[in-house]
């Protein structure tokens, strides 16, 4: 059947060991898929895709004047994470966000970590997203990163590594929820006997975080007024904004719906102006307030930053968190964990070289054809050089870019990402995957069990981004440990 010719090859396969044995935590999925043939499986997949189309779980292809809408391709074989593995991942993520949050507080206050020479000052002060204007501003409950999505990968030994942190406006949580709902509808038999952790609490937890982080001077018996601020319907993630707002039952607002008076934020309603207390903003810092940041931003709200500084409104995430997901600063996260928590990192970084360190730089330039080079502030798989697969011209182009501005580049050894059975034609074949878990920081830190597994659908490809041929899978965390 579908697994007949399956080969883990020379990779770490999530489902099978090197000798082809099913890993214990995949046994129930394997059993449920045993008798499914390609036609049936494809029909299920088509049913999921039709339901996504119907529900408008789509993104718009900008380059197309017809406004063609595409769905984010979905593969029905779930990615399963064993209970004991998840325990470690969860602890590691909590440790990491705790340290990152302490780092942000420190950087915007006393900068002890710089004074103690753990991180050279130039790296922080030159970071593109460092916001000097926010020095010594207090944020409610001292929480900077309310919502975090860190990308995890597994290497050839199955070790979980952190590839990058997303501390600004991480997206994709809606796909995590929609994928689960879709798979439950089309493949209910898969879930039986597996004991899968639910992910459906995410919106409720997110709302709790927002309410917990109401401004310090907010005093009322009513719950604070929370809103989600979106760039608008033409943003490619608008579906997610509307989805989350609906799930939380809060208004979704655009910049033009808000107005600031006397350092307070109001929304313009049919009943006049109504006060806003907490904003889950899905607009980057640069576009948030044209009176402080980019004056040409039409998406933002003039005066919002003043209101925020005055402590009359809370923002999730806070302003200036991008300094901590700069890829050069990423290099120092294990040092931060040691410095602030006195602990060893539970989830290691991928080995990284900094082009701005002369020794590393020499190594990078001598090995451009073997390394992966990344710009410090790009996301979505852009601004990257995949050395082993790149042309001579591309390599020379990056050599020039690195020599011109070494601060803007890091390099990593290519990681042979773990693979997962995925439908390819009539059979399952191994495809590379990663994992984006979602971490919420409020009264306590909550990691939603699972997250978004992205899969590179093209054979051999290591790029999982949706803009470049990636798809996604439902991600399961098992409730119970499965005996060997």
């Amino acid at each position, binding site marked *: 059947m579908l697994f007949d010719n399956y080969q883990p090859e020379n990779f770490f396969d999530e489902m099978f060991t090197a000798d082809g044995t099913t890993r214990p935590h995949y046994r129930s999925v394997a059993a449920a898929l045993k008798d499914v043939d390609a036609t049936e499986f494809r029909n299920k997949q088509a049913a999921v895709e039709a339901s996504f*189309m*119907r*529900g*408008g779980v789509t993104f718009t292809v900008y380059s197309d004047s017809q406004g063609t809408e595409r769905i984010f391709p979905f593969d029905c074989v779930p990615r399963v994470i064993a209970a004991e593995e998840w325990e470690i991942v969860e602890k590691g993520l909590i440790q990491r966000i705790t340290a990152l949050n302490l780092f942000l507080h420190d950087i915007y206050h006393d900068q002890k970590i710089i004074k103690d020479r753990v991180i050279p000052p130039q790296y922080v002060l030159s970071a593109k997203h460092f916001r000097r204007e926010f020095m010594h501003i207090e944020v409610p409950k001292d929480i900077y990163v309310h919502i975090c999505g860190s990308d995890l990968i597994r290497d050839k030994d199955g070790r979980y590594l952190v590839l990058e942190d997303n501390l600004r406006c991480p997206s994709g949580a809606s796909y995590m929820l929609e994928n689960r709902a879709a798979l439950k509808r089309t493949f209910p038999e898969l879930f039986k006997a597996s004991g899968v952790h639910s992910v459906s609490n995410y919106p409720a937890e997110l709302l709790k975080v927002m309410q917990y982080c109401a401004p310090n001077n907010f005093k*009322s018996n*009513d*719950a604070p*007024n*929370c809103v989600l601020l979106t760039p608008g*319907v033409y943003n490619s993630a*608008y*579906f997610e904004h*509307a*989805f989350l*707002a*609906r799930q939380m*039952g*809060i*208004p*979704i*607002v*655009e910049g*033009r*719906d808000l*107005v*600031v*008076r*006397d*350092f*307070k934020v*109001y*929304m*313009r*309603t*049919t*009943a*006049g*102006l*109504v*006060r806003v207390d907490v904003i889950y903003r899905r607009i980057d810092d640069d576009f948030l*307030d*044209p*009176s402080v940041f980019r*004056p040409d931003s*039409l998406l933002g709200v*003039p*005066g919002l930053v*003043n209101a925020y500084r005055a402590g009359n409104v809370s923002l999730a995430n806070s302003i200036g968190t991008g300094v901590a997901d700069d890829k050069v600063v990423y290099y120092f996260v294990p040092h931060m964990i040691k410095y602030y928590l006195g602990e060893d990192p539970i989830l290691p970084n991928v080995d990284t070289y900094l082009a701005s360190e002369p020794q590393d730089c020499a190594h990078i330039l001598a090995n451009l054809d073997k390394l992966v080079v990344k710009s410090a502030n790009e996301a979505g798989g852009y601004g990257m050089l995949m050395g082993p697969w790149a042309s001579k011209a591309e390599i020379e182009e990056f050599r020039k870019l690195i020599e011109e501005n070494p601060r803007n580049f890091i390099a990593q050894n290519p990681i042979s990402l773990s693979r997962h059975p995925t439908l390819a034609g009539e059979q399952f074949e191994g495809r590379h995957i990663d994992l984006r878990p979602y971490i919420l920081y409020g009264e306590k830190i909550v990691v939603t069990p699972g997250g978004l597994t992205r899969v590179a659908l093209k054979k051999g490809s290591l790029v999982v981004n949706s803009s470049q041929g990636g798809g996604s899978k439902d991600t399961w965390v098992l409730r119970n440990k499965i005996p060997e």
Partner: protein
Amino acid sequence: MSKTPPTQEEVARHKQTNVMLSRVAGSLYWMSRYLERAENLARLVDVNLQILLDFGQVSDETMKEHWIPILRSTGDESTFFQLYEVADSESVMEFVTFRPENPNSLLSCISSARENARQVRDQISSEMWEVLNDAYHFIKNSNAETVWDGGSSTFYDQIKYYSHLFQGITVSTFSRNEGFEFIQFGKYLERADKTTRLMDMKYHILLPKVTDVGGAVDAAQWQAVLRSASAVEPYRRFYVADILFSKVIEFLIFEDTFPRSLMFCLEQMDDFAHLIADTPAGEYRSDGERRFGKFLNNLHFTNAKDIIQRGVHEFLTEVQIEISAFGEHLYTTFMYHPPVDMQAEILFHQQQEQQQQ
């Protein structure tokens, strides 16, 4: 009258369920209007394609005389002739149904309804959204040839069906809050307007000879008007009589038990406008409300005979003006905030910040 601006305490802290952004109210209103417009267009085209079947072979000239009034009634005649040379069944059908250049084509209306729904995706039920989304993909995946070959009635019935499904789902899944009032107000406003245009279309259709008035062709055309409004059977039940011009006018304007009649729609508009403005029933507080109330009241003291004497077309034109003025009044009062002057706002907040330092 001079009052200081409201302080923080004076600005009510509404519970979130009571809060509706003006922009959201506007999107719900337009979503509803566009869908109702699409439904009425589908009715119009369908019925006219069918009338032509009754005529057998028709000359090019008759064909033109038949279709041009329809283009005129939707107000898109000039756009049409920018795109086509000849007005015949196929070109008009394509223009009214599929052309994106025509802002009032079925495709444009359904897209606009869906775009507005997308703006308020968080406010409407998933089922409402899915119907609009289905309707959109349905029309996106069709084209003039397939509709022509596959039987146009099936196609237009499906559009009507989507609209009816949407209305039913709205009634059964949407909370009876302010948003509901905007949806209903928009629907009845659009329907009232389209009912006047349906009747007006007949005014534009020239009969072959003066003596044809009251003849078979005339009756067939009035029957088509009734059919466009799903009103043939209710009419027959009501009058148990032949289709007569004066009775059709009376029925479509005054029969307030029939949900597509002008009177029914105007009454509903009045009711929902009272709810939206929080004005007690029977009272009229703003200029806009008073003007519409007066118009509606006058209509109650009018009958079909008066209207025919005065001229049906003149009457319908006046109604269209009143409907549009009342819609405008509600829109500017509740749904529209003039955009902020960004440059002035930026300057204002920068100065305020400096004063703080």
